[in-house]
Structures are given as C-alpha cells and as structure tokens.
C-alpha cells in the first residue's frame, strides 16, 4: 500500500513536533524515519498509524483519504519500542488476539486461527514459545512476538517505532538482518523510526531524515551518505570534522590555508567572500609527517585508540580545534605515532556548505 502524507502539522503546547511535513511512499518499500530525539519522527509514525491526530494536513492510503479513520479502521501493524505485549496472555494468545477480536462474520474458525498463529510463530522462529508468557522471554524474542502479533491481522502497512531501541547491540544487529529478510519475503510497505543512522542506512531502501519537525532530506542510503543535502544530514550520518573557512576565487580557505575543492562541489565562484563550513569525515583525512601535499595543515596528536578495524586518532589542529582522523593499522606503524607528535593533515575529499548565499 502506498502512503502519502500531506502538509502535516502537529504541536504539543508550544512545541512544534511536525511543521508542514509532506511525504510520498510507494508500495513495498522499507522506509526509515531518521532523526535525533525531538525531531518529530515518532509523532509522524503515530499520525500515520492513527494513534495521534494531526493539527492540520492529510494522510492518504492508496490515494484514499484516511485522516479521519481510527487506528482500528486503518489496519496497520504497529510495533512498539517496549513491545506492549499483553502480559496476562500466552505468546500464542498474544499473536491470536487480532484474529479473535474480529467481528463474528469475518472471524476465522478456531482451527484456522491456530494454524495461522503457528505459521506466524514459525516465521519469527519461536514456534516452541506458544505456551510461554511474555515475561519468560528475552527482549529480542518479545519483539519478534510483537511483530508476529502485528502481522497476524495481515496489515497493509507495518509501522515500527524504534523496534530495536530497547535491545542490546548484538541482538539489535541480528534482528535488523532478520527484519530485512522478512521484508524481502513479505514485501509489505514498512516504516520504522530510528535515531541510529547505521540502522537506517543498513536496513532501509529509503531514508527520511527529520530535524526540528521538518524533512531535511529523502533519499536512498547511498544518496544520503554520499551527497547529503544539508549540513545537518552530513553531520548526523557519521562522525565529521568541522572547519570554518572562507571562499575566495572559487577556493576554500581555512585561515589562509587553501583546501583543494574536489568531488561534487557546488559551484563556488558566485560565493566569493562568503563564510563557509567545511565538513570532512575522519577517514577522508590523509596523515603525513611532512607537509608534502598542498593545503595540508599541521596538527598535534593527542590520543590514539587502536582497538577496532581502524585506528582512531584525536588531534588538535594548528588553529586549536579538535580533529578526528581514522587511519589503517599499517599506516599507524609506518608513522610511529604517539601523543605529542606533530603531523600534517590533508583532506582527500570535503564538502563545503556556504552560509547565507
């Protein structure tokens, strides 16, 4: 089912949660609503589900207006961050709930309900847990039950509110891959809310980045990562070093040192004399012991963390700003770094944002 959201506005007292948000999601996609807390992502999900009424705007399902339909009538599957399982029911009864509450005319016969529930429990790989109670299961298992329960009513959309937020890192990763596979099997339009950029980039076909109640950018994970539309998106999708500079003659200068402007840069010629923000990811800074590259600037090593696939080096630039660089272990051995050593950094790629054009 396709979902269209038009000019949604939602306020809580003086706080604007969503400010004129419009969104068009085609059938069968796995969409991430990504943003920091307070960005309005959960409000948007709850408005789509019908759990929260918008102050203004419309929600359309399959090009049909659904704004005034209740959550019950919208037939969406909703998965909550804290599972919201019915504690007094067995796992089996939890999953069967959506079928048992149907009006008599459309309620499947008991044998069909049993078959359906068992099939779903198998799908979430918990067929052994039917007679258990939710309190006897781990967090990851509970969330899978919550998912099976939501799928039992054969929803046209699956909405997940930070579904992995309450789980520990290992289980979260496992469940993420599992959800991806499930979506590939079922092809049900799914939207999940997350504040974890890694989760959004790994899982979704399409990511909607929200910030302060507005959409910053919509795109595939690839588009978002490689051509972020705003400084916020660049900043939010991973670690980043920020330098304040100026633009002169189509070149970016950081306090007199010119940086090579390369790789998908906006045309800087018309921005002469403006202030600019320069964003460089830590793994895109080259490190040398001598200023062999044009535009290299000096920095002093402060701290080295070699535990991980990459070595994380914290430095202080010649202007006194903190800088993070990621290098290979081999490179670390070549350079023989230790705290206090002075090195030269040169960006391999940067992205420039110009203030107030």
């Amino acid at each position: 089912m396709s979902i269209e959201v038009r000019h949604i506005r939602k306020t809580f007292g003086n706080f604007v949660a969503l400010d004129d948000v419009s969104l068009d999601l085609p059938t069968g996609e796995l969409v991430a609503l990504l943003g920091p807390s307070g960005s309005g992502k959960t409000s948007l999900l709850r408005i789509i589900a019908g759990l929260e009424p918008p102050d203004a705007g419309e929600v359309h399902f399959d090009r049909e207006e659904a704004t005034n339909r209740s959550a019950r009538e919208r037939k969406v599957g909703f998965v909550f961050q804290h599972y919201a399982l019915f504690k007094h029911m067995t796992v089996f009864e939890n999953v069967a709930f959506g079928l048992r509450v149907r009006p008599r005319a459309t309620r499947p016969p008991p044998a069909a309900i049993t078959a359906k529930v068992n099939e779903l429990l198998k799908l979430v790989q918990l067929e052994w847990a039917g007679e258990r109670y939710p309190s006897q299961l781990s967090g990851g298992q509970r969330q899978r039950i919550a998912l099976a329960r939501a799928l039992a009513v054969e929803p046209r959309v699956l909405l997940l509110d930070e579904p992995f937020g309450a789980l520990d890192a290992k289980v979260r990763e496992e469940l993420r891959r599992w959800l991806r596979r499930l979506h590939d099997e079922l092809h049900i339009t799914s939207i999940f809310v997350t504040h974890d950029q890694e989760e959004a980039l790994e899982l979704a076909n399409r990511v909607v980045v929200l910030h302060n109640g507005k959409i910053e950018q919509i795109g595939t994970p690839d588009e978002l990562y490689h051509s972020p539309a705003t400084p916020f998106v660049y900043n939010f999708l991973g670690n980043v070093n920020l330098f304040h500079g100026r633009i002169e003659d189509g070149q970016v200068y950081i306090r007199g040192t010119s940086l090579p402007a390369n790789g998908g840069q906006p045309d800087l010629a018309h921005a002469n004399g403006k202030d600019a923000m320069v964003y460089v990811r830590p793994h895109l800074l080259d490190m040398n012991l001598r200023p062999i590259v044009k535009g290299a600037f000096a920095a002093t090593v402060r701290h080295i963390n070699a535990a991980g696939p990459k070595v994380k080096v914290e430095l202080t630039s010649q202007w006194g700003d903190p800088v993070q660089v990621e290098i290979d272990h081999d490179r670390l051995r070549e350079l023989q770094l230790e705290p206090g050593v002075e090195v030269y950094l040169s960006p391999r790629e940067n992205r420039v944002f110009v203030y107030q054009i």
Partner: protein
Amino acid sequence: MSLKRRRILPGFGLTMGYTLAYLSLVALIPLSTLALSASGIGWARFWHVVLTPRVIAAFRLTIGTAIAAALINSGFGLLVAWTLARYEFPGKGVADALVDLPFALPTSVAGITLTSLYAANGFVGRWLAPLGIKVAFTPLGIIVALTFIGMPFVVRTVEPVLQDLELEIEEAAATLGATRFQTFRRVIGPAILPALITGFALAFARALGEYGSVVFIAGNLPMRTEVVSLLIMSKLEQFDYAGATAIALVMLVMSFIMLFLINLLQRWSTARHAPG
C-alpha cells in the same frame, strides 16, 4: 562451600523472630483467648446460643450487607480509581483527598451524618420517602454506611495498578482491531482483576466488623436490622459474656475462612494472569 545464601541486608533470624512475636502479641494471643473462653461454655450451650433465630438473622444481615457494599464499591471504586489514574482535572487533589476521608473520619461521625441525611425528614431522605424508599433504619441504610467506609479500599488498591498499566497496550489492542469494549474486557480487565479482588476482600472484611457507623443508621431492631457486632455489644451489656464470646468466635472463624478463600481466588487469578 556455604549453604547459606548471602544477602545484602542481614538479619533474617531477627526479623522473622520479631514478626512471629509481634503477630502473636497483637493478633494470635487475643484471638486464642477468645477461643479459650468460648470453649469454657461447652458445646451444648455454644450451639444453643449460636443457633437462635436472632443470631442467625444477624449473621445473614451482616454478611449480606457486607457483600452488597463491597460489590457496590468494586464497581464505583473502579470508576473513581480510573478517573484519578487516567485524567488530569482541576480539583483532582481535593478529589484524591476525599477518597481517604472515610479512613480518617471516626465512624460514629459518619454514622450520625448518614442517619441525619437519610432519615425520612433528612436532606436526602426527604426526597426518597415519597418514592416509598426508606433508607435509615433499614438494611439499605446499613449498606449505605458500609459502602461509605469501604470505598477507599477498592480505590486505593486498584489505582496504582491502573497507573502502571501502559497506554501502549491499549494502543496495541486498537491497532490490532479491538473495539473499546474488547480492549477493556480482554486487555485491561484481566490486568486489574487481582487488584480488584483484593480491594473487594478488604472492603468486605472491613464491613463485616463495622460497628460505629452502622449502629446509628441501622435502628437495631432484632431480627431485622441488627448486625453481629451490635449483637455482641448488647450481649456484653447484659453481662452475657459467654453468649458474646460464642458469637464472636463464629464471626472470627467465618471471617477467617472467607479471607482465606478470597486469598486463594486472588492467588489463582494472579497466577493465571501475571506469571513470572
């Protein structure tokens, strides 16, 4: 290897000893004295006292009105608890304090107030009298008094459970297609049932032994509006200590059996609805 389980706070021996001593001193010794002095009168006298029509009528009245009052409180107490737990409204603090008033008010004050309200010429009774409804000096009046004193028990046991109930499980039920009634019956009801049974039991137990508020409104007509606690009192006033003790013993045994049964019922519903 030590067989003792280590705990953060020590003192099992001390606290257990204290608990047993305290329970014995406060509850067990007085009650066993009661049994002992009742045993002094002999079985024949005992049955003779207990099985007189006046005593049986008093028991029937006491238990019947206590059950009625506890049931009324279960229904309306649940509503009050729901309102207090779920909604914010001006004057909520006052409403909250009012719930506890029956705890704090001397029961005799409650009895006098209710009697003057519900008497045929009272503020409320005046409007009920033309309809043929008599409250004061009838079993109905006793139920009114017992409802008054039992109300906080239901509200205060159910309210915290309702507060702990996540709104999300109601939302989950709604997205799964449940109507409001189904959500209440299948999701909220089972979750609050153990607390509601506890509240009922407490209100019922309180009503069984109530004296102060009932004596004024009941009218105390033997066979008709005389409750057990009053009957014991009047036996004592006539220096019939043996008779009073016998009735008290029966009351004691019945209360104990009923509380025990309710405890079992509660344990069963807790085991069924919230394991682990």
